[in-house]
C-alpha cells in the first residue's frame, strides 16, 4: 500500500483526510525500513523482479505468498477474465491486442500511448503516478530496444520515492512530537482544573471531559502510528486482530474529540440562548453524546471494513469507507459552527439593545469555542485542495501541525489563556507563599484573607476583593470591573432569590475568558 502523503490522485476521488495521512505516512516510514520494495533495473520492469525479491526475503518459497504476490495474482486472474469477456475491437485500422504485462491489464488499444494509474502492489509505487504503454502503428506493443521484450513504462511510479520518504519521516516525527506535547499540556490543564476547586462548574466539567478525550486520542494515535510502521515489516502477521482493534479505537477517539467539542457548543447554546435562567443543566445527555455516541460510527466502520475492505491492519486510506467516520465528524463541526454563529447573532443583537456588560461576558465565553471550531475543522476544509509541487510540502507541514497539535491548542485556549484559571492560579500561588510565611508582593499575611476562595463565599465579596487587589495583568481589569458590575446588576435586579443570584454570578464568573 502506498502512502498517500503526497496525495496526487489525478483522476481518482480526493480521499484526503488528515488522520489517514498520518496513518499513511507511517507506511512510508515502513518503506524506509524496506519491506516489499521493488528494485527493478532501469530497462526491465517485469514480474521477475517481484519474484526475485520474494525469493530473497523468504527461505521457504512455497510457504509464504507475500501480499504483493497475492495482489498481482488476483489482478492477473481478473485480467484474463476481462480479456475473455470483453467485446472484440470494433474500430477499423491496426490495434494492439489485449494483454497482461505481468503487473497490469491492458485492453485493445489504438496506436498511441495507453495510460493507467500505478498499481498499489509495492510500497514505493505512487498510485498517483501513471504507467504508460506505447502501441506502435503496426499493431504491435512497444518492444524495449535493449532486451527486445514487450515493455510497459513503470518508471514514473517510483521516481519521487526517495523524496517522499524523507518528507514522510519528518512528518511522522512531527506527528509524534505534536501528540506528546498535547498529552503533556492537557494533563497539566486537567490537573489545574481538578485541583482548583474554585473553578468547578458545569462548563469546566465539560472541559475536563474534552481534555480527557484529546489525551486518549493522542495516546491511541501514537500507538497506532508506531504499530503500523512496525507491522509492515512482518508480512506473515497480516491478519493481526489486535492491530485492527487499535485502528477501530483510533477512529472512536478521533470521533469523540469532535463530539465533545459539539457538547461544548450545545452547552453554551443552551446556556446563553435557550434556557438562560435555568438551574444547572443535566450533563447526562452530554456524556452520552461525547462518550457513548462515537461508538456507533466506529463500530459501523469496523464492521464495514471487516466485511468489504479487510486489508492489513485496516490501514489503507484508498477507500470510501473512511467517510463513515468523517461524515459524522463533519456534521458535528458544521452543527457546532451553526450553534456558535447563532449565539454570536443573539449576543450582537442584544448588544444593540442593552448595555454591553452581560453580552461581553458571554461573548468572552463563546470566543474560546469559536476560535477552536475552525481550528479543528480547517483540516477538513482545506484538505481536498492540496496544491502540487513544492508548495504541497509546505501545505502538508501546516496541515500536520493543525491536526497533531490540536490537543495543545485546546489546552492553551481553554485553560492557559482562560483568565479565570490564570487568576485562580495566581491567587493559589499567593496563598501558598503566604502560608509559607513569605511576603511576596509586599502584602502582610493578614490581607491574604481576601483570597480565601471558599466555594460558598459570597460572589459579591470576591468581586469586591477583585476590585481591591491590583490586578496582576492589566487586561483583566476591565473584565473584573464589568463582571463585578454585572454581578451587582444581577443582584439588584431581583430576578431571583440569593440562590439564583449566586448561580447567575457563578455562571458569569466561570464563563469569562
Amino acid at each position: 500500500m502506498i502512502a498517500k502523503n503526497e496525495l496526487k490522485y489525478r483522476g481518482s476521488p480526493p480521499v484526503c483526510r488528515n488522520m489517514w495521512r498520518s496513518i499513511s505516512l507511517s507506511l512510508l516510514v515502513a518503506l524506509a525500513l524496506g519491506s516489499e520494495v521493488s528494485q527493478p533495473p532501469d530497462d526491465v520492469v517485469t514480474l521477475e523482479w517481484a519474484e526475485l525479491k520474494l525469493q530473497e526475503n523468504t527461505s521457504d518459497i512455497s510457504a509464504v505468498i507475500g501480499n504483493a504476490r497475492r495482489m498481482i495474482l488476483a489482478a492477473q486472474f481478473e485480467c484474463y477474465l476481462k480479456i475473455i469477456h470483453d467485446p472484440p475491437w470494433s474500430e477499423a485500422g491496426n490495434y494492439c491486442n489485449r494483454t497482461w504485462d505481468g503487473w497490469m491489464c491492458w485492453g485493445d488499444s489504438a496506436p498511441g500511448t495507453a495510460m493507467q494509474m500505478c498499481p498499489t502492489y509495492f510500497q514505493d509505487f505512487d498510485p498517483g503516478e501513471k504507467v504508460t504503454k506505447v502501441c506502435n502503428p503496426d499493431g504491435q506493443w512497444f518492444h524495449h530496444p535493449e532486451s527486445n521484450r514487450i515493455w510497459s513504462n513503470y518508471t514514473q511510479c517510483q521516481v519521487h520515492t526517495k523524496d517522499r520518504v524523507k518528507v514522510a519521516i519528518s512528518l511522522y516525527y512531527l506527528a509524534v512530537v505534536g501528540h506528546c506535547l498535547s498529552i503533556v499540556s492537557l494533563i497539566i490543564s486537567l490537573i489545574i482544573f481538578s485541583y482548583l476547586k474554585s473553578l468547578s462548574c458545569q462548563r469546566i466539567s465539560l472541559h475536563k471531559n474534552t481534555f480527557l478525550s484529546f489525551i486518549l486520542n493522542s495516546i491511541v494515535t501514537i500507538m497506532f502510528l508506531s504499530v503500523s510502521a512496525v507491522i509492515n515489516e512482518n508480512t506473515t502477521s497480516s491478519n493481526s486482530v489486535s492491530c485492527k482493534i487499535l485502528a477501530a479505537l483510533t477512529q472512536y477517539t478521533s470521533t469523540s474529540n469532535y463530539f465533545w467539542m459539539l457538547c461544548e457548543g450545545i452547552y453554551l447554546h443552551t446556556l446563553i440562548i435557550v434556557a438562560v435562567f435555568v438551574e444547572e443543566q443535566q450533563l447526562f445527555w452530554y456524556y452520552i453524546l461525547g462518550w457513548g455516541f462515537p461508538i456507533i460510527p466506529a463500530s459501523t466502520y469496523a464492521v464495514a471494513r471487516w466485511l468489504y475492505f479487510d486489508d492489513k491492519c485496516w490501514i489503507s486510506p484508498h477507500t470510501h469507507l473512511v467517510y463513515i467516520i468523517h461524515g459524522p465528524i463533519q456534521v458535528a463541526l458544521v452543527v457546532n459552527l451553526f450553534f456558535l454563529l447563532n449565539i454570536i447573532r443573539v449576543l450582537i443583537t442584544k448588544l444593540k439593545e442593552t448595555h454591553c456588560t452581560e453580552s461581553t461576558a458571554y461573548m468572552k465565553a463563546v470566543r474560546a469555542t469559536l476560535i477552536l471550531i475552525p481550528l479543528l475543522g480547517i483540516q477538513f476544509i482545506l484538505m481536498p485542495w492540496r496544491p502540487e509541487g513544492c508548495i504541497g510540502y509546505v501545505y502538508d507541514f501546516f496541515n500536520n501541525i493543525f491536526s497533531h497539535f490540536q490537543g495543545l491548542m485546546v489546552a492553551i485556549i481553554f485553560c492557559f489563556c482562560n483568565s479565570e484559571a490564570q487568576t485562580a492560579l495566581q491567587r493559589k500561588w499567593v496563598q501558598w507563599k503566604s502560608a509559607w510565611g513569605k511576603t511576596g508582593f509586599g502584602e502582610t499575611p493578614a490581607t491574604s484573607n481576601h483570597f480565601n476562595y471558599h466555594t460558598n463565599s459570597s460572589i459579591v465579596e470576591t468581586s469586591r476583593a477583585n476590585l481591591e487587589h491590583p490586578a496582576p495583568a492589566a487586561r483583566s481589569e476591565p473584565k473584573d470591573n464589568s463582571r463585578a458590575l454585572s454581578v451587582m446588576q444581577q443582584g439588584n435586579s431581583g430576578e431571583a432569590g440569593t440562590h439564583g443570584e449566586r448561580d447567575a454570578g457563578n455562571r458569569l464568573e466561570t464563563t469569562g475568558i
Partner: protein
Amino acid sequence: MGTALLKHTLLCLIVAVSQCVSAQGCGSHYEFAIEEFCLAKFKLDMQKLDQRQWCSWEDTVELYSDLTNCTYVVAQGMSCYWPNRMVDEFFIQVHRYYFHNCSLSGRLLKDPPNRILGPFIVVPILVTLLMTALVVWRSKRSEGIV
C-alpha cells in the same frame, strides 16, 4: 516435498532439451513445454477439486500460483521473456475452460458497490443529526425542571 523435487528435476530436463534445440525457442517449443508440463499438473489438481470450487478464489489461488510460476520458470529456462504472447494465449485457454463462469471482480480489495456503501455512510450521519437534536431537546427541557 517429493513432488517439488520431481518437478524441479523434470523441469531441468526439459530446459536442457530445449536449450539444445534453440536459443530463442519462444515459439512452438515453449507452447509445447507449458502445455505438456504446466497444464498437465494443473488439470490434475483442478480435477481433485469439486467443479463448484473452481470459482472460489481461496481454493484455487495456490494452484493458479503454481501454474503461473511454472510458465515463468519454463520461460526463463528457454530464455524467453515473460509474459509473452504465448503466455497470453495459454491463459486465455485455461480461463475459457475453467473460469469462464467466475465473477469478474471481488478478489482485489475494492469498495463495495454504491448501494451498500451509501447506507453505510448515510446512516451514521443521520444518527448524528438525530442524537444532536435529542441532546439539544433534552437540555432545553431541563428548563422546565427547576
